[in-house]
C-alpha cells in the first residue's frame, strides 16, 4: 500500500502541483486565487465523487470519460485565453487572469483528485493499511512538492529572463499534453476510432519509469502514442503559437508605426 500510494501521488497529484507551480510563477503578486480555488476544488470534488455513479451512466456509460476529456479540453482553451490576455492586456481587466487560473486549477483538481477520494474511500477502512497509506501520502506528497518547487523556481527564472511568454509556453505545453493524454479515454469507450500507434519508445523510456511519469506530466510524453494523438498534439501546440506570434508581431508593428 505504501508504494501504491506513492505511485498514485506521482500520477495524479503531480499534474495538479505542476500546474499550480506554473500559474504561481506566471501570475502577478496576489495569491488569494489559489486559496479560493483550492477550497472550491475540494467542494466540487466531493460533489463529483458523491454523484460519480450517476455520472458514469450518462451517455450510455461514457459519462466519466466525456467529463474528464471535456475538463482537459477546457484547461487547454483557458491556457490559450491566457495568451490572449497577454496580447491584449491593455484593454483587458486584470482579475480575468485570476479567474482563468482558478478555473484551470479547479478543473484539474476535480478530474485528477477524484482518484484519491476513490482510493482512500475504498481502502482506508482496512485497519492494517492505515499506517502504510499515511506514510505513502507523506512520501508521495513530499516528492511531488519538491518537484513542484523546482519547477516553480525554473519557471520563475525563465520569466525573469524571457518575460511572461516563457511561463505561458510552459503552461501551454503542459495543457496540450494533458489534453492529448485524455484522448484515449474517448477511444476506450468507442466514441472515437483512433488506436493506430504512431511509434513505440518503450525501450528508450517506458511510461512506467519515474522519468516517464515526469515527462508525461510536463509535456504529455507517451511511449506508444496513437497517430491521432500526434496529429492533435502538433495542431494544438502550433496553432496558438503561430497565431499569437503573428498577432504580437502585428501589434508591435502597429505601435511602431503610430510612434
Amino acid at each position, binding site marked *: 500500500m505504501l508504494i501504491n500510494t506513492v505511485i498514485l501521488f506521482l500520477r495524479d497529484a503531480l499534474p495538479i502541483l505542476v500546474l499550480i507551480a506554473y500559474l504561481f510563477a506566471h501570475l502577478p503578486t496576489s495569491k488569494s486565487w489559489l486559496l479560493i480555488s483550492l477550497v472550491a476544488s475540494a467542494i466540487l470534488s466531493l460533489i463529483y465523487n458523491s454523484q460519480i455513479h450517476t455520472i458514469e451512466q450518462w451517455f450510455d456509460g461514457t459519462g466519466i470519460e466525456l467529463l474528464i476529456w471535456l475538463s482537459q479540453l477546457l484547461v487547454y482553451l483557458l491556457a490559450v485565453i491566457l495568451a490572449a490576455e497577454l496580447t491584449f492586456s491593455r484593454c483587458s481587466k486584470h482579475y480575468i487572469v485570476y479567474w482563468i487560473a482558478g478555473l484551470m486549477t479547479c478543473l484539474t483538481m476535480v478530474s485528477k483528485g477524484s482518484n484519491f477520494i476513490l*482510493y482512500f474511500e475504498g481502502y482506508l477502512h482496512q485497519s492494517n493499511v492505515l499506517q502504510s497509506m499515511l506514510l505513502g501520502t507523506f512520501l508521495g506528497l513530499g516528492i511531488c512538492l519538491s518537484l513542484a518547487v523546482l519547477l516553480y523556481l525554473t519557471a520563475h527564472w525563465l520569466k525573469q529572463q524571457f518575460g511572461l511568454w516563457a511561463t505561458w509556453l510552459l503552461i501551454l505545453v503542459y495543457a496540450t499534453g494533458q489534453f492529448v493524454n485524455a484522448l*484515449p479515454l474517448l477511444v*476506450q469507450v468507442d*466514441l*472515437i*476510432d483512433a488506436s493506430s500507434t504512431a511509434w513505440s519508445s518503450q525501450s528508450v523510456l517506458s511510461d512506467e519509469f519515474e522519468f516517464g511519469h515526469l515527462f508525461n506530466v510536463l509535456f504529455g510524453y507517451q511511449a*506508444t502514442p496513437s497517430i491521432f494523438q500526434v*496529429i492533435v498534439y502538433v*495542431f494544438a501546440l502550433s496553432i496558438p503559437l503561430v497565431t499569437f506570434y503573428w498577432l504580437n508581431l502585428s501589434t508591435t508593428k502597429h505601435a511602431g508605426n503610430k510612434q
Partner: protein
Amino acid sequence: MSKLVRYLSLSCGTLSVLLCFPVLAAVTEYHLTLKDHLFFPSQITIPANQKVKLIVENLDPTPEEFDSFALNREKVIFARQKATIFIGPLKPGEYSFFGEYNPNTARGIVIVEHQNQEVPDAH
C-alpha cells in the same frame, strides 16, 4: 489571416470526421473478473488488427482502476460493478495491464496474435 483560420478549421474538421467515427462492426466480447485483487483469467488472447470489447467485473468490495500503459487505457471499476473497455486494433504482441490500487497482485496480460478462426468469448 481569416482565410488561414478558415482553412485550418476546415482541415481540422475534415480530419476529425475521417479519424473519429468508429467503424460500425460486430465486436467480440471478452470477460475478465477481479476477485481478491486478482484478475481471472490473468491472460487473455485476442485476434490481431481487430477491435474487441473487454468487460471487467469487480467482485471485490473495494474499487479498482484497470490500467495499462501498453494499451493506453485507464478505467475505474467500482466495487461489485462491471466496466466496459474497448481495446485494439492491435499488432501481435503482449500488452500488460494491472490494477492501479493493487499493482502487486492485480496483474494480467493481453496476448495479441494472428488467428484464422473466430475466437469464442473468453469467460
